[in-house]
């Protein structure tokens, strides 16, 4: 029985809400952490893991699986509950986030986390690794796709643009880059720190097929991933306009929630908001 579009979107909304709750639970266990950039990317991760990507939680290293590189590794508080929801490990483990000898720290470690395809944390590394994965797939006649999630501030790193050139040069239409355009880096707005606009034009000039979407609108995210690759022979870039801190009003669009304390009061407030149906837009 195939799922209707309404059913699909309702299911994804439930997942996205659970993921956001998981972000807050993980960061509450940690005491503090990257709230803003984890919440902004929750919808993209949700669609990837519960609609788009092929993987097998019982066989995390399945060679034909689609790959995800969380190049903005500081959003590991979002990846951690996503992989739990996807069945790679027990959801209770999310509560060990940042605790002594936990598999889950501020940044993902592929040697410790089942389902994690790449260790990241230092910004600007992920796209190069994604290019290698996509090239590896093509050389070995494998059909898997590689998805790389980058921060907008992360695009200040020159290494990203070296990889952007390489992906176009090699015609990697099995590679999908996603930019989490939440408009902030660590200390301020990207356009006040080191401007990156006009961003879509930049990626186009580097040889990528680009689409701009509302990255917190599940329907748009679904349709965009379904449409990739947009152009045969070109790497795909999804410029996902998002709200930093999305889903927790206190944190939304606020630079000081890039990294914040998540005590019991904050956790309760966030969970209450996430469970209130009015917020599930």
């Amino acid at each position, binding site marked *: 029985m195939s799922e209707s579009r309404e059913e699909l979107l309702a299911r994804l909304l439930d997942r996205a809400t659970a993921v956001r709750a998981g972000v807050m639970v993980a960061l509450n266990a940690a005491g503090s952490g990257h709230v803003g950039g984890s919440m902004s990317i929750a919808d993209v991760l949700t669609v990837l893991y519960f609609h788009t990507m092929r993987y097998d939680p019982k066989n995390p290293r399945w060679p034909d699986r689609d790959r995800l590189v969380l190049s903005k590794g500081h959003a590991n508080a979002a990846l951690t509950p996503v992989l739990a929801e996807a069945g790679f490990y027990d959801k209770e483990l999310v509560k060990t986030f940042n605790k002594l000898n936990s598999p889950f720290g501020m940044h993902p*470690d592929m040697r410790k986390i089942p389902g994690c395809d790449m260790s990241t*944390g230092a910004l600007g590394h992920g796209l190069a690794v994604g290019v290698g994965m996509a090239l590896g797939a093509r050389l070995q006649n494998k059909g898997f796709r590689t998805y790389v999630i980058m921060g907008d501030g992360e695009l200040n790193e020159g290494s990203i643009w070296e990889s952007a050139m390489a992906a176009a040069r090699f015609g990697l239409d099995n590679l999908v880059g996603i930019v989490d355009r939440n408009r902030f880096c660590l200390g301020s707005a990207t356009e006040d720190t080191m401007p990156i606009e006009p961003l879509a034009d930049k990626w186009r000039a580097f040889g990528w097929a680009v689409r701009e979407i509302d990255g917190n609108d599940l329907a748009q995210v679904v349709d965009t991933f379904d449409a990739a690759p947009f152009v045969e022979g070109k790497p795909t870039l999804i410029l996902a306009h998002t709200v930093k801190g999305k889903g927790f009003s206190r944190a939304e669009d606020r630079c000081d929630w890039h990294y914040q304390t998540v005590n019991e009061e904050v956790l309760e407030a966030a969970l209450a908001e996430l469970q209130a149906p009015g917020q599930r837009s």
Partner: protein
Amino acid sequence: MAATQTPTSQPTKSTRDGFGEALLEIGRANPNVVALTADTFTLSRIDMFAKEHPERTFDVGIAEQNLLGIAAGLASTGLEPYVTSYAPFLTARSLEQLRNDICYTGFNVKVCAVCGGIAISVGGSTHHAIDDLAFLRAIPNITVLVPADAVESYKLTKAMAQHPGPTYLRMGGRAPEPLLGIGDYPVEIGKASQLREGKDLTIIACGSLVLPSLRAAEALAGEGIEARVLSMHTIKPLDRDAIVKAAKETKRIVTAEEHNVHGGLGGAVAEVLAETVPVPMRMLGIKDVFATIGGLQELYDLYHLNTQGVLETVKAVLEA
């Protein structure tokens, strides 16, 4: 050998704050001082300088290689750049810019790193710098400084302003560190600061391991063992004379550092001893592993980077 585990009620202050306060004074007195960062404005504490001198402060965004290259260019025009970011990104990430554009050229750039060692404990190995001293020890022309607390950080920052040439200052992380609280003593680039006299062995420590070394020496004194303690805040150029003197006078050496046991302070001291006075020596540090996740104090305890760890290392060298 019962030892108390750090931390105690010791007053605290960030090494970052000591740096930031000194930079403010240096910048007031010297219009050539320029501060740069890569989206780590507040954490690196150049915010104090920036408030007074916004026209001499630059944030290049999250682009550390660019940061060091720009600093080299500024220095080539006679300015005195202080660049700040996280230790791993100023060294491992941008090592070639640091080596070629700053050290090879000999430009007067002060590379001021926060979050040295495992200060961002929960950040994992991408955010740890337990190899920075090893990298820099192998690069000619650079002075390498590791303050033990906020006071040393302040004094070393003031000293490096008077000390032209490439310099690396390795500071701690977000959480304020305990102050040594032992009163005023001279802190001079290139000279070990002797913090305690002793005749039975010498503990040579840097950074976060200086305070545990002092505590260990105190515990040892209770057992009639007199340990000399040196704060080796200058890893390069190393104070060979103080090391040779310690080896001759105390016959045994222990080193202690928040760094891989390979290539850091321990290695530097061993190189000196091997060629001069090869006395028994033991090294305390991280034993060539990528550290696990956990709170900073938990990791200090796990890797024995505490008073107990210094005492264990002392015991080993006394039995050697």
